[in-house]
């Protein structure tokens, strides 16, 4: 997140994520979430995986479906997930979006596609040391 106060709330990033990852048009299926900060005049909150080096979501996973990713963040193995929602609750920024339809978490895979559709450069895709930030 580079310039959150510049967000105009167009949701193009969310549509980009759902388009690439899920091949659907949806605001529910996106690893990046734009929310109102409480009344449009106050601007927006953009929630996306911070690629923690020691990710709480992975630590909360009882089956090893989420494992830390070299360089930060996590890798998700859908076949091992039992849908306990532990990861969803463990992420205090709310970046583990819950896919109600499939009963699975939506985990950012750090592809950076969303950043190509931000008209105001609110989000950028960059590598910072060991930590990968979107």
């Amino acid at each position: 997140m580079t310039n959150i106060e510049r967000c105009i709330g167009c949701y193009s990033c969310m549509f980009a994520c759902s388009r690439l990852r899920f091949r659907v048009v949806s605001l529910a299926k996106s690893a990046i979430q734009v929310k109102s900060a409480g009344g449009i005049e106050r601007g927006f909150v953009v929630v996306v995986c911070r690629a923690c080096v020691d990710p709480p979501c992975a630590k909360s996973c009882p089956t090893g479906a989420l494992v830390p990713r070299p360089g930060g963040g996590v890798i998700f193995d859908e076949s091992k997930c039992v849908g306990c929602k532990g990861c969803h609750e463990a992420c205090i920024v709310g970046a583990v979006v819950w896919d109600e339809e499939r009963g699975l978490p939506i985990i950012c895979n750090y592809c950076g596609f969303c950043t190509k559709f931000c008209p105001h450069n609110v989000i950028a895709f960059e590598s910072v040391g060991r930590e990968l930030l979107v």
Partner: protein
Amino acid sequence: MTDPSLYNVLYIDLTEGTYEVQERRDLFEKYLGGTGVAIRLLEEECPKGADPFSPENPIIFAVGPLTGLYPLASKTVAMFKSPLTGNLGESHAGGRSAVAIRLAGYGAIVIKGASKRPVYVSIFNDQVRIKDATTLWGMRSSYAVGRVLREVEPGAGKRTIMRIGVAGENLVRYANVVVESYRHFGRLGLGAVFGSKRLKALAIAGTRRVEVDDFKAYAKVYEEIYKEAVRTEVMSKYHVLGTAENVLPLNAMGALPTRNLTQTKFELAENISGELLAEKFLVRKMACTHCPIGCIHLASLRIAFAPGHEYETLIIPYDYEPIYALGSMLGIGSAEGVLRLIEKVDGLGLDAISTGVVMAWATEAYQRGLITDKETMGLRPNWGEDVDVYIKMAERIARRANEFYSALADGVEVAASKYGGLDFALTCGGNEVPGYHTGPAALVGFLTGSRHSHLDSAGYSIDQRALRAPMTDEEMVRQLVEEERFRNVLTSLVVCLFARGIYKLEVVSKALEPLGIVLSSEELLKMGSEVLRAKASFKAREGYSPHKLRIAKRFIETPTPLGKLTEERIRNMIKMYVERAGLSDVYGPP
């Protein structure tokens, strides 16, 4: 085929407190959506001669096949019988409304009947609830209504909350519906129709998805349109200064209606220009859902309300039209003044253009002695001299404070019919005039356009082209008809009209193809003509005739940049329009 959720029409009956969903593939396959589908639903649902304030008058919202799928397909079309003009009511708004309706699983929503007590309707996917709004009724500001519903309704950030102000409750015939605080179904009185149904608000949110036939092709076309929108100059003016950019150029060419169009140049235009507002007051730009442009300009205004550095800070949206109507038309030459008046008018839920034109007439009528302190309840309007006079006047209109203000609340034509001064009561087809005294094309466009709006056929652009290279009246009319047909294609998709430079017909065809809709440019234009014709038929059915239009003398007396107009010339151009648009059989002989 396109995603079938678009075919779902949600019918809500406020009298019975019931709802049902019907699949209307027939309508969407033929007319795409938006304007095209809404006019057919209006024909079906609105009985001939219905009182606009009776339960019989339906409220229709429609989106289209591009909604949710492509950038700039961000608008919702509303249709109803207008309590202001007595014929077609059509108004468009963006905000979160269009994508919310589509992702809730609908292509259109029809609201019929009337509730006995104040209610609001909450739609979340397939859950539809009619809820008590007693506590919201009479609330001083439409902003406050949004603040309450924001806390109790689902879908934060992605939902739409449409609501009316006290003007709508009191059936002011040009009351609007406020959407997401800063966007509006502004024109022709949708807010009053809400009020007549005791419908205070409508909250819509959804979590559904839209399926696409050929996803690969869709994603490709998406990227092309997105890039064109953000990386080229086609749309930059809407983002940079916004529509307020128009103030200075229109003033320079002598087309900025000032002091009830007694003048077309405003000596204080610089003070209310887009440039000045951007430099001194602009604090944030915002977008409708799925629009990467962000034309919504929000100003911040700090007002001292007591000694000792006591301040309140207002966030106020501004655009060209409110600046014209609540600025130059009233002779208000300070940005602070205009912003304060916009904030008041929005909060009351009044249409800015109609309110400004009505108050401009009232000012002139007061100066000419047609009305006195008795009628105005002591207010002494004197152009820009005192903004507070206009703030109070707007409040009194919204509350229909006495017989005079009640007449103002019925529109400037009603007021002038009662108190005199029709020659300077500035309506076209019963609708208060937008701010472009550019020449014959604009005026003929306002008079003939199905919404009597600058957005119907954009005659002001044609006039400006004619300024650069002279044009015959025939050519102007030809361009008006062509533009109106094209715009009815865009508003059926539904694409924002600001994106008209991007969504050329061949781009529209290309965007529709991955959705399984194959239509050539010619077929699209043919559909646009049919939609226009259907709207004209509804207007004619409800008593509108282009041959019986009142043309206020002021439009003729005040010269345009293209010279002084004559009534004969305008009437002749109207005749040409009817023929050219192929509507002679609809409207009958002159």
